[in-house]
């Protein structure tokens, strides 16, 4: 049970708003020591895992390309395309992106979206431009629109991708059940992701439709 101390470190660290990097390393040390490892052993274990997970950080290679296009007006072009269109509201733009993101994820095309490639350079500027067209230019609105743009990308991805039969989580479930002597077809698992996907579309879609009204009343206050 002592090994759970690391989890306590994580919770306390995040609540106390200590820098997450420090929290993570402290939690790793506490967990390793509680499990009876020596301090150097924990450092080596952490180092090995840090090295083996370098692929997680490869996504960052996209930033120089995105940064270059931003220097030459990518965000401004995204704004110009949307700005002035009365029909384009923040909620409607995000709803359209949400539908595209969820459907493409369900078809296995998860790499079509993402925060560095899509949300920062394209989706968030378009959503902001729509808010500006409707007279919402304050910073508070901008912050809310950006946060909702990122949230919409995540929710579309999470509740779409499990409908695709070859995604990591489906393969994990098939493998896990197999180890426990239960044979299940991937298709059988992915079919049962559909009810939640429909509910997710209705729930978050409704929130996006209501988001325009919320922005307007927030700006009026």
């Amino acid at each position, binding site marked *: 049970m002592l090994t759970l101390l690391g989890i306590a470190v994580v919770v306390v660290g995040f609540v106390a708003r200590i820098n997450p990097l*420090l929290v993570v390393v402290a939690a790793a040390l506490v967990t390793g020591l509680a499990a009876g490892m020596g301090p150097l052993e924990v450092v080596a274990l952490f180092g090995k895992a840090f090295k083996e997970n370098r692929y997680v950080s490869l996504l960052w290679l996209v930033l120089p390309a995105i940064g270059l296009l931003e220097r030459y007006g990518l965000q401004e072009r995204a704004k110009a395309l949307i700005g002035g269109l009365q029909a384009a509201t923040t909620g409607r733009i995000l709803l359209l992106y949400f539908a595209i993101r969820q459907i493409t994820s369900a078809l296995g095309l998860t790499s079509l979206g993402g925060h560095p490639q899509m949300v920062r350079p394209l989706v968030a500027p378009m959503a902001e431009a729509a808010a500006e067209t409707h007279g919402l230019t304050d910073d508070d609105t901008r912050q809310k629109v950006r946060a909702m743009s990122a949230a919409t990308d995540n929710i579309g991805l999470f509740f779409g991708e499990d409908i695709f039969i070859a995604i990591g989580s489906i393969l994990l479930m098939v493998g896990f059940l197999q180890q426990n002597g239960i044979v299940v077809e991937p298709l059988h698992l992915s079919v049962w992701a559909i009810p939640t996907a429909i509910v997710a579309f209705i729930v978050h879609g409704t929130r996006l439709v209501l988001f325009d009204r919320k922005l307007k009343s927030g700006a009026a206050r």
Partner: protein
Amino acid sequence: MIGLEVLYAIAGALFAAIALLSGLDRSNSRRWQNAAFWGLFSACFLFGSHLPDMANGALAIGLVIIGGMGGWRRGEPVTSTIAQRQASAATHRNRLFLCALIIPAVALAGTMLFRHLTFGGLHPVDPKQATLVSLVLGIILSLAVAMPMLRARPTEPLQEGRRLFDQVGWALLLPQMLAALGAVFAAAGVGEAVGALTTAWLPEGSRLAAVVTYTLGMALFTMIMGNAFAAFPVMTAGVGLPLIVLKFGGDPAIMCAIGMLSGFCGTLMTPMAANFNLVPAALLELKDKNGVIKAQVPTALILLFANTVLMYVLVFHRF
């Protein structure tokens, strides 16, 4: 065969260049700390595979000390003004989108192609890493198209990259650090301990209690671990299989599918899922680091409730 090592060499070279440019940036009073930070990160990529575990651990801790203790300052390389950007946007128009969309398009096409591409029985690209290789290829192709079109100087992508890397700052390391913490948790048996704890509290009796324990447990444990994949085997072996499937005769496929999605509701509500929640907050320059989580919580809670209802209604039927 092109695999992870080639990509790590590219990343190592890029971050070495970022370190160099950071060191040359006289406008930043803490330029040496920035240079050290990106230099250490570059060393992880360039030499990590050949260093002993202890040295990799020391590199990681060095990064945490510089990045986590406020030793560095965000560099601000000179970029274009808003007026210049608007003028450039008016000149290049939708070709800018084209350059941006090359990246996902190549990533997709490459993923499908490289999995099956063989020459004389050999894979030119490691099929397991097809997605990452294709992504990096897409980035390189996008730069190859954009730079002549925009008449950009060779240092521009590096300086613009540095601008964004410094803006994201320490959050950039967090996904990799959390993955390493997950490995330490696994080695120390944290999952089993949580599983034992949950089993000890397991409610006896009703189907509803079993379903609620499983869906809420998936969400909570995912919030702690930052990852539904880590929570799934523990919760399913500890609660799902013995109670819902064995005791009450529920359908394992329906249970697993909806159980995983309950875990995803947890992912939406935790700073531990840094790459989905904290990193976008940094990328979008949000003042509130938890702003993305706050935007997600209403959807996540409603969906967690919906998942619990769906599982209760569906899992005990035989379809």
